[in-house]
């Protein structure tokens, strides 16, 4: 009986040891290729050994931002949508199409068509920023020499105007992105419209962002999703880029605003405090009394 028990115990031990060894070797076999693949191609975030992975994501992001910032001129179409949480608690999505033309350092043109059909135009020619609404026959214009970076910052920060993803149009985009990003991860390699793409996910203090950057020589973003995590309802902004063109045909008059006949100049909200004192200087195109 004793020998029987001992042999059973021995067999059990052997089986247990064998199983453990087999299990370990299987695990190693599974993890190793993944780790290699991750570190070599930056294709997936897995397991602990992928220490180099975030650096890869960081490099991909930096390369995209620097490529864009150093591109002297480009045009791109942008279809974006954003959610607005209504007071009822319901989230409603609005959309718009933008055609953007950039010619550094002084030329910027953004044609916008909102989902309700309203059209707007924003132009900068190195001297003046103009926003124009043809359906209302009004425009506002302010002098701001100094290039696109200055103009865009002034337009958003000081005039309080809206220009989604404006940060991408400035040459400080790489620095701004690095400064704001607190965490960055490689999500996956995926395919958008047949193009192999890196999907990255970053976090700033107030916005979580995702960006899809194609592999290859032109790492220009194909898609961006922004989540406003601190805003009530955590609404998102989604943008899809198309028709990147790094050699667009550019005419001088694309960036300079020439008011159509009968167009009236109005102020930016930010100018209202000084409006009564200074008025709007626009002798040629100011409309008379209705």
């Amino acid at each position, binding site marked *: 009986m004793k020998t029987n028990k001992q042999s059973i115990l021995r067999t059990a031990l052997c089986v247990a040891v064998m199983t453990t060894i087999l299990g370990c070797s299987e695990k190693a076999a599974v993890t190793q290729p993944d780790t290699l693949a991750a570190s070599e191609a930056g294709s997936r975030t897995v397991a602990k050994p992928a220490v180099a992975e975030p650096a890869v994501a960081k490099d991909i992001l930096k390369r995209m931002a620097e490529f864009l910032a150093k591109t002297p001129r480009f045009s791109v179409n942008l279809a974006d949508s954003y959610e607005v949480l209504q007071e*009822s608690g319901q989230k409603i999505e609005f959309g718009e199409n933008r055609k953007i033309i950039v010619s550094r350092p002084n030329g910027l043109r953004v044609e916008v068509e909102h989902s309700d059909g309203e059209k707007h135009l924003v132009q900068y020619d190195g001297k003046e920023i103009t926003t124009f609404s043809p359906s209302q026959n009004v425009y506002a214009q302010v002098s701001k020499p100094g290039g696109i970076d200055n103009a865009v910052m002034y337009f*958003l920060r000081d005039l309080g105007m809206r220009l989604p993803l404006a940060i991408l149009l400035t040459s400080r985009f790489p620095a701004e992105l690095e400064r704001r990003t607190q965490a960055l991860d490689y999500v996956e390699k995926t395919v958008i419209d047949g193009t192999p793409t890196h999907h990255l996910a970053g976090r700033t203090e107030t*916005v979580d962002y995702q960006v899809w950057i194609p592999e290859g020589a032109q790492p220009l973003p194909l898609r961006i999703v922004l989540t406003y995590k601190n805003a009530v309802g955590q609404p998102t902004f989604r943008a899809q880029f198309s028709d990147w063109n790094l050699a667009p045909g550019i005419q001088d008059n694309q960036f300079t605003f020439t008011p159509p006949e009968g167009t009236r100049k109005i102020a930016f909200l930010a100018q209202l405090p000084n409006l*009564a004192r200074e008025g709007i200087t626009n002798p040629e195109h100011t409309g008379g009394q209705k």
Partner: protein
Amino acid sequence: MNTKPYLIVTAIAATIVLLIGSVNDAVARGRGGGGGGGSRGGGGYSRSGAAASGSFSSGSMRAGSSAASASGTSSRSQAAQTSATNRAAAQQSRQSTSTENQAQRQSASAQNQAQRQQSSSQNVETRQQAATNRAQSRQQAAQSYQGAYPAGGYYPAPAYGYYDDDNWDDGEVAAVAIGAAALGAVGGYAAGQPSDTSTTTVYNAPPPSGSAGLPCTPNTTVVKGVTYYQCGSSWYTQAYGNSGVVYMPVSAPY
């Protein structure tokens, strides 16, 4: 002697039935009101919010806080007040024709008051809650960042010097700044985003054909190249905000 208890029981039963009836009425009206609120389509929806900015940073922009929602909110609260008044009037007329006891009237009027208080404090609560949520999530984000920082791959904290330009693409910061500036200069209006204490309405600009966005058919005057619109003693002018062209109340140009 026997009839009196019977009468009392009948009176109590009738009171209960009437009370239940009035509660049901209130519920039905409440639902009706809700339906009405929900049906305000065709431009009743706010188009402005944190996500509309499409920026890589965000301030504390409230949900639906825009010029459009400013007027929407004001008209909704007016409607709520009107319906509350109607409810009170209806209740009173029922009471006057009723021969029921005072307890019911007290109960009904207390109910009205409670409803009014509830509806008036609802907005405040929502705002407070939203502010608290934002503060909490900011704290959480900061904590989680501190906690997660040692992990590999996380960026170091920003070490740049130009904090003045932090979040310059955030429409909220600019709008608040404009609001503050405008308040000082013109007095009594909010720019784009009404503050919690502001009751001023910003009018959306109408289609080019007319002045439908203003509360009247205005007199139009041009002073120093600026077109002003006058409605009674109020003056307005058009201006570009981040949600488009709006009419803003301004001080008289002369």
